[in-house]
């Protein structure tokens, strides 16, 4: 690449350095500083912020966060796979309509969508009103502000991140390979198990990493739909910066989360590599 070509990358590089690398660096530095009496950042080196994270209170929040993220991932996978499978099987013209429907929620503000759920689920909400009216229940159900509603919100929010990679994987799947499996005596179920599932593994991994990493840092959904009872890692970080005014501790937790996410993204790249190696055959 010549010099002029390199110049094209300059705006992006400047942008990323200013608004990504630099803040990250600041956060790394701050995570080793101390909190002053009034919540200011005192520049004296300590690793206490990191050690503090390993206290039982935060460990249990970490475990809770991991469990919620894990269940969210499994939930989205179980919902998304049949949908993606269906979309990949219908004629192309109709596939696009379905894919747009999957992505439509992205066009609506995230907060509005979360509050819409509140309107549906709260005690005077749509579901409770209908159930009360038709006499199935006598007192409103507690549909909101519990782990169930948090999980519902998370799965709802992150579903597209699972559907799209799965769809790409399924769409790429060579139909002839399935026919070969049928031809060799596999029933539909066994062909799915031995051929479709293993060959869409990259999509499953990519979707799972996307959903898992996103749920790790999620704080709006637990805030709005979980109420005060549910505290995830994202909420802890948010609190450190906004209410507790403990920037060094907030930074330390953020750094740890970045490391965890980076590990998962490394896995994602492994999966991509695997896919690259295995799609080469089709071009031969």
């Amino acid at each position, binding site marked *: 690449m010549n010099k002029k070509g390199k110049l094209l990358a300059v705006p992006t590089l400047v942008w990323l350095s200013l608004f990504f690398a630099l803040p990250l660096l600041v956060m790394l530095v701050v995570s080793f500083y101390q909190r002053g009496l009034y919540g200011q950042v005192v520049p004296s080196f300590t690793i206490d912020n990191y050690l503090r994270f390993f206290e039982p209170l935060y460990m249990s929040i970490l475990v809770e966060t991991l469990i919620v993220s894990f269940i969210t991932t499994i939930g989205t996978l179980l919902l998304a796979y049949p949908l993606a499978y269906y979309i990949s099987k219908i004629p192309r013209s109709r596939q696009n309509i379905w894919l747009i429907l999957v992505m439509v929620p992205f066009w609506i503000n995230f907060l509005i969508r979360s509050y819409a759920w509140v309107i549906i689920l709260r005690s005077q909400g749509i579901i409770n009103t209908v159930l009360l009216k038709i006499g199935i229940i006598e007192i409103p159900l507690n549909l909101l502000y519990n782990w169930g509603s948090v999980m519902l919100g998370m799965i709802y929010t992150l579903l597209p991140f699972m559907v799209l990679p799965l769809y790409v994987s399924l769409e790429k799947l060579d139909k002839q390979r399935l*026919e*070969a*499996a*049928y031809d060799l*005596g596999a029933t539909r179920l*066994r062909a799915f198990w031995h051929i479709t599932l293993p060959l869409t593994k990259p999509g499953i991994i990519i979707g799972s990493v996307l959903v898992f990493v996103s749920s790790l840092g999620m704080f709006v959904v637990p805030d709005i739909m979980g109420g005060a009872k549910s505290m995830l890692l994202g909420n802890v970080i948010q609190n450190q910066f906004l209410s507790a005014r403990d920037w060094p501790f907030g930074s330390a937790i953020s750094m740890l989360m970045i490391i965890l996410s980076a590990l998962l993204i490394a896995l994602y790249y492994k999966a991509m590599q695997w896919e690259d190696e*295995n799609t080469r*055959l089709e071009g031969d």
Partner: protein
Amino acid sequence: METMIRVENIAKGYDNEQIIHPLTLSVYEGEFLTLLGPSGCGKTTLLRMIAGFEEPDSGEIFLAEKPVKDKPPYQRDVNMVFQQYALFPHMNVEQNILFGLQMKKVSKDEQQLRLREVLEYTQLKDFCKRMPTQLSGGQQQRVAIARAIINRPKVLLLDEPLGALDYQLRKSLQLELKNLQRKLKITFIYVTHDQEEALVMSDRIVIMNKGRIEQIGTPETVYNTPKSLFTAKFIGENNIFRQGERVFCVRPENVHISIADGIEGKSATIRDVVFTGNYHKIYMLAEGETTPILTYDYGNQTKWAAKQQVVISWLPESEVTLIE
């Protein structure tokens, strides 16, 4: 000879297009039968209906006298070798080959026994643990064949299995496949658009055009006595003549040319002399005609040159009358 497959009045259409007009065909046990025709002639559709991937609109398919039209592919005692091989990329060669036996729950001992046998046939012994991506096109093709024949099907269906390979490899694999078929004594139904391939390998050739069978016969029959204009043009090179209502063809090798000095025949002018390796193609224009007449001159030297005046003749028995 026992009939292995009988296709009776099979028809197939998509939307408004008729892919296959009702056709009937018998394939004998141990036969190497080729479905030959240009792309879109319905040969692959016919093969896929026999395999069970497409359902015929009408008619019946009999495999060893038993109707199989309503059976799914996995319940038919036939196996297919796909055009792009369709190997399973996440399994090594051995796992690919054993897939069919595992689906049929054949015992482990039997699996190993048959595996050794087909590895012998297909010379894949040294590649057992390789992944399909690590194989050449020819090797992948062998795996596809091994994966199919290990099931000992009554009929092996092959959908242009050599189409993706280069010319030299294709040539050697043609003979290899033919020998394999003789050894295994399995009925082969082979789909190709390559007439040369069909002539080299087949016991019988079914020539298809626009969803209909044009002619069925041995390679010699379809080459020497084509019934229709389509067959005459599709197989090998041919000279087509029209005399009033009658259409007939004369193979280039049956056209004799001599120096123009009073010999009886058509007088013509040589337009082109083309060197093809082991013979020259000589294109001539007869007086008052616009389609050139072709003949071959064997040997690597030729006395003929463009613009030369010549006389063309052939024996009356070289003329084959055609249906248009």
